[in-house]
């Protein structure tokens, strides 16, 4: 079948444009530097476009696109890949059980709107303080809405490992929130 390049590209761009913000913010939040993030994203999009013939219409384009993006991120930074391979067996940190700062945390839970209003600028610093593995898993699950199974496939990890990364990153984020709340006198 001789479908013209023009139509194929139009189709690709249409699918892509629906996810442009997702792809951009994921890349930016993982890589952090805007210029590098844009370079990596462009490479990922080009390589997906080259392989667009293999995309099965009707399947999840966002997931398909993210698999290219994650590969490019790993290519651009060997350290990320390495960290995923050195899976930490200590499960550690569970959101609820853990938090030794429980009392301070409770006051955040009780007044979320005041807290988030005041902490707005610090949310990104909290994310920055997570390890790349924790950051990626959290972003993929919570911000981009992928399932555990999809994340496990992206990162080539067992589902259980994805779950422990996720639980650790959520616990770490909350710990950091408590630290900021202390610093700013929101809680004692």
């Amino acid at each position, binding site marked *: 079948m001789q479908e013209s*390049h023009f139509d194929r*590209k139009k189709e*690709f*761009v249409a699918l892509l*444009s629906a996810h*442009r*913000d997702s792809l*951009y*913010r994921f890349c*930016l*939040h993982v*890589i*952090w*530097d*805007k*210029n*590098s993030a*844009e*370079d990596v*994203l*462009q490479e990922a*999009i*080009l390589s997906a*476009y*080259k392989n667009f013939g293999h995309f099965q219409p009707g399947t999840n384009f966002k997931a398909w696109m993210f698999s290219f993006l994650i590969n490019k991120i790993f*290519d*651009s*930074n*060997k*350290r*990320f890949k390495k960290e995923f391979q050195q899976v930490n067996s200590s499960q550690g940190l*569970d*959101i*609820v*059980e853990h938090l030794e700062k429980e009392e301070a945390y409770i006051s*955040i*839970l*009780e007044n*979320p709107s005041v807290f*988030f209003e005041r902490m*707005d600028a610090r*949310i*990104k*610093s909290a*994310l*920055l*303080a997570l390890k*790349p593995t924790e*950051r990626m898993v959290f972003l993929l*699950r*919570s*911000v981009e809405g992928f*399932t*555990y199974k999809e994340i496990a496939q992206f990162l080539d990890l067992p589902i259980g490992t994805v*779950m422990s990364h*996720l*639980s650790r990153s*959520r616990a770490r*984020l909350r710990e950091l*929130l408590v630290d900021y709340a202390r610093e700013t006198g929101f809680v004692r």
Partner: protein
Amino acid sequence: MRCQDSRRYLNPYMDSELDAKTCTDITNHLAVCEACSKRFAQEQEIEKRLVKRLQREKMPDESWEVILERLNAYDSPGRRRVRLAWLVPAAVVPVVTAVLMLFFLWGKAPDNTNSWSATLQEMHGKYLKQEISISPGLSWPQEFQGLTVLEHLPQSGVIGGHDVQLLGGRPFYAKDIHGAHIVYTCCNTPASMFILRKEDMRDLKRAQRLLDKGKGFAVVDLGNMRLSMIDLKEVVVCCISSHETNTLLTAFSRT
């Protein structure tokens, strides 16, 4: 189900990833336990607010334009390749294969021939052309925080007779290398300093040979620029500048 057990499932509960049996157990527990049901709702609220904050980031239109341009540029050679394959008679399959392979190799070449020194030079060039911005407040992602050299960067002032200004820095991830990119001016000439972990350096052998020969210090002439390097055990600090920056570079070793 006890409260402690139910709370272990908070994550998969929030993510709708519970199996049917556990889901029923949790729902039943939440129906009768006010403490847990309150806590689960609160946690979901926190999560929702975090996510909302992080979703605020949008792709700028300029970035989208660049992507569209690159897709357009990619299409032209691609079309030629297809037409060529159509024109060649089926009898000369080996020739077609050879031609396609050539195209394949040719298409791949630019990425691979780029050595790290060229990449660093390119990044310094981008800074000079103001294509990349350097933030004065140096904040580093977690994966950089083990680099002690970043915590003790040479500061602005007169160093060995050179007027040094620290302008700022950023993490970078380019091609096969990543590290920290710090920009200074030395005697009013911009100088990009790149801090690279040795374990991440792909061309380490070549760099190491140069560094060993120069007892931990090496200079490579790049035409209008020079690349100078200093070996600091775990990291190598590379400098790209048109200025002679040995003094600034040695200041890194004193940290």
